[in-house]
């Protein structure tokens, strides 16, 4: 529902009247008449009311231009709370280029970044060369330039020693079935001399021992 120009003018006039009345009732105006204010004379503002500044005079209030009536539809407001609020999409703000003088100043002014113990531990767990790491002196603080340097694929000084290549476990390849088949006949092949029953050596009797002792050296 659009407001008509007469209603707008009337509302403006009412607003101006309220402002005038408030100005006359304001503590500053009262203070001109009396230095002290009673509690009843203190203006109590509600939450929605703004502290009135010095109200403009009637001469200072500009007259509503005639083209206001033409622009009125542009400030139409949704009278119904159920009506969807139309919000025009806001174009993203593109960051502007960094001022050259700012970058030049930041390049020569390093900032200190303290490495937390957590980061140190994390670095330790990833360190594969503790011996080379131990040669380095601890650096609790590091001066990092604001403008990061381009990363290089070179190894850090802590990794001066070449990595040790651990031997990979050798997984034996399964023997082909042909190998077992070829070995089977060999496993079962047995000379005829071994097919006989293997008998334990007969223990010597006392007769054998005594006879041998009395005939020792005789063929």
């Amino acid at each position, binding site marked *: 529902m659009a407001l008509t120009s007469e209603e707008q003018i009337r509302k403006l006039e009412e607003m101006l009247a309220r402002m005038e009345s408030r100005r006359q009732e304001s503590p500053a105006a009262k203070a001109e008449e009396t230095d002290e204010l009673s509690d009843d004379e203190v203006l109590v503002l509600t939450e929605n009311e703004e502290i009135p500044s010095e109200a403009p005079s009637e001469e200072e209030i500009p007259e509503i231009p005639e083209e206001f009536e033409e622009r009125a539809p542009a400030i139409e407001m949704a009278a119904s709370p159920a009506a969807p609020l139309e919000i025009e999409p806001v174009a993203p703000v593109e960051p502007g280029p960094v001022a050259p003088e700012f970058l030049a100043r930041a390049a020569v002014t390093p900032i200190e970044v303290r490495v937390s113990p957590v980061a140190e531990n994390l670095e330790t767990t990833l360190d594969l060369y503790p011996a080379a790491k131990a040669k380095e002196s601890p650096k609790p603080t590091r001066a990092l330039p604001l403008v990061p340097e381009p990363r290089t694929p070179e190894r850090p000084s802590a990794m001066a020693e070449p990595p040790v290549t651990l031997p990979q476990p050798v997984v034996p390849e399964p023997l082909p079935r042909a190998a077992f088949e070829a070995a089977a006949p060999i496993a079962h092949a047995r000379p005829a001399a071994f097919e006989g029953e293997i008998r334990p050596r007969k223990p010597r*009797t006392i*007769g054998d021992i*005594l*006879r041998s002792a*009395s005939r*020792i*050296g005789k*063929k």
Partner: protein
Amino acid sequence: MNKLKIDPEGYFRFDLEKGDLSYRDGGRLLAYPFEALRKVLETGLGSIRKTLPYSIGLHLGEECGRRVKSALGADFMDSDTSPEQFLAHLNAVLALHGLGMVSLETWGEALLVDWQIEPAAALHVVEFQEGVLAGVLSAATGEPFEAASVDEDGKSMRFLAGSTAIVDMTKIWLGEGCGLGEIVDRLHAGRHLETRGRVE
């Protein structure tokens, strides 16, 4: 298998009414004091100084050997009687006569008898002990056995047992300073048969 067939309680029989001491199965005995025997053996009698102790020991040994053979069986030499069985019965008989205990060693074909010093060897009459062993082995086996003392270590005396030719040559080689190992090697090589004429 190793059950002892010699009963110690019935080995001797004392007939106090007659004053007789004998084996239960026959054969008189004379309980002769050990010290008295030692004095006789040490004194000797002239030319038979060495042969008398040997003869006393030989006959005593023969009596013991017969009883071992009787306990094991007349054909024990041809049976599967183990050396342990033979030794158990031999020691039982020797112990009943107060002659101590022996053990057997085989060095190849050679047979050595290890005889404990106490009590019998305490006589320190080698000929007596050699006679006992010769009598025991000969009577038990039916083979001619002799014994020669070859070693003594303070706890026992070691004797080499064998035929007469073996024992005679062993004594000669011992006199030449040969050790037991070398003597056994020579016996296995038949050296005693080559030089048999020297001792006969």
